[in-house]
């Protein structure tokens, strides 16, 4: 009985790890600024949201994603609600892919992810530049997109590993 209870506690901790990671990433930003690398940055939140919306939609609630977006706006200093919108569009794209996919494939997921982040960043760039009068560095954004796309392979495998071996549910992809 004790063992079952203990397992349940561990399972619920594992269950909240994606949400915790999402909030840590928006509050802390995994963009490697501290290493002083000029041409390197990636958006960890995009990878996390897309992966979990696609593979385990029940792990990240939309409301958490919405709140994380608000937090991200406050930390980064962009107009409030913008990141939430981007995150939710990403979720929508992931949900659409999940609905039309019969046989999941990492390469297809990645290509769809690339298309989605390209659209999202275009919307972000357009909104910030033309509506809110923020000036953005186009080159920095392209670098961010490229590295986010490349890191999707790595993090996707890491999350698969986490879901398969630690959470123990063999339905991660």
């Amino acid at each position, binding site marked *: 009985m004790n063992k079952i209870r203990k397992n349940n506690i561990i399972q619920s901790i594992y269950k909240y790890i994606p949400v915790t990671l999402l909030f840590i990433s928006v509050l802390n930003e995994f*963009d490697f600024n*501290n290493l002083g690398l000029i041409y390197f940055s990636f958006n960890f939140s995009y990878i996390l949201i897309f992966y979990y919306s696609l593979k385990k939609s029940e792990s990240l609630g939309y*409301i958490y994603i919405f709140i994380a977006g608000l937090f991200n706006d406050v930390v980064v200093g962009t107009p*409030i609600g913008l990141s939430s919108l981007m995150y939710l569009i990403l979720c929508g794209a992931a949900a659409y892919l999940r609905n039309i996919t019969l046989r999941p494939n990492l390469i297809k997921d990645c290509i769809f992810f690339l298309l989605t982040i390209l659209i999202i960043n275009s919307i972000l760039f357009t909104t910030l530049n033309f509506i809110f009068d923020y000036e953005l560095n186009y080159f920095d954004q392209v670098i961010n997109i490229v590295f986010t796309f490349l890191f999707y392979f790595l993090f996707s495998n890491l999350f698969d590993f986490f879901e398969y071996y630690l959470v123990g549910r063999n339905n991660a992809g």
Partner: protein
Amino acid sequence: METSRDDFVIAIRSALLKKGTQQRFSLLGLIFFSITFLILSSLNFKFINYIKIGINEVVYRSSFIVSGPENFIKNNYIKAQNHWNLYEENKKNIDELIYLRGKDLSQKIITLENIKYKKLIDDYFVGDNETVAKVLIDKQSPFLRSIVINKGSKNNIELGMIVLDEGYLVGKVVEVNFFTSRVLLISDINSKIPVSLQPGDIQAIMSGKDKQKGILQYVRDKNLKEINEDMQVLTSGSGGMFKSGIPIGKIYTDQNISINKNKVVNFHRDFDQLKYVKVVSFSKEKNFLDFKSEDDAQKVESKIEESNQQQETLRILLEQKKIADEIRVKIQKENDFLRNERVRLKNKILDQKKINQQNKIQTEEMKFLQMNLYYGHKCKKRALNNLYKVGSAEYRKCVLNKALKEKNE
């Protein structure tokens, strides 16, 4: 064709409207909600502003706590890096210190003169509000470079106040909450600062480029001649946004090929390592050139005079020291030469003494041989006398005594 469109519509509808397990809101509902949020916040809707301020206060504090481990690693990394670079840095610092000490006094004079002239043209600003703040968040994302400090409207922080780090310009306050404020760094692409390039007094507008660099966007005079030395970038004070003369960065010589292109400004401060900053505002000094300010001007004048005298004394002392050093070196050289000469002569005397000694011995030998011819038979041992054996010391003594006796008689 019709079926495929239906599939697409069904998939979209399912993705956006269907609430999954444990999802309380549909995606479409939340998207509309965030768009509403965005529109209302852009219209400065009061209710949204209150929510925003509330979230700001919570998020800034939580972000500070969440960033704890990262900051710990970052600080340790910087510490270790500093430790490795300590020796080289120390050597460099010593050289720099010697150089700067020399410059210090001249700078004081220039500052005083500057104050005097600024007072004359009524452009002298004094700091009227100064607050030291701690950096809570320094998340300089690739898109926006800003920091959040732990002082807000409660501590009289106002929009547009200047933020300095050890006298160097860091940015300006762009958002004020009750306990916290956001500072837009000068490295941000959105910050446009009127600057002045020295030497040459070239006016320009600087914008942020990346973490440690800015870029000159608009240079007033397009046909400037080339300046082949490092250029200091200071705030020009144009537009009244910043006080003039706050140092920002440097343009290195090799970049000064032609000033009318986009030039890179290397900032003096490292914005990744900001811990405490000073938030200041400046205002014009109240008193103009009335009787009181004339007294002040006289005071400044006398200070300049005093400093000039000090500098003159220092210059003379330095000159004297230089001469004394030269003399000391000269005397030391002479001393070395004389010491060598003394050793050489000493050796020569010793050689001469040896030769003399040998000569003396030879002369005595010659004298003895000569005396031996005359008196040898009187001292030589034979069968019938009890004299000395030839070659012995007694024989030699006897021969010499006989010669001496003969000489005396």
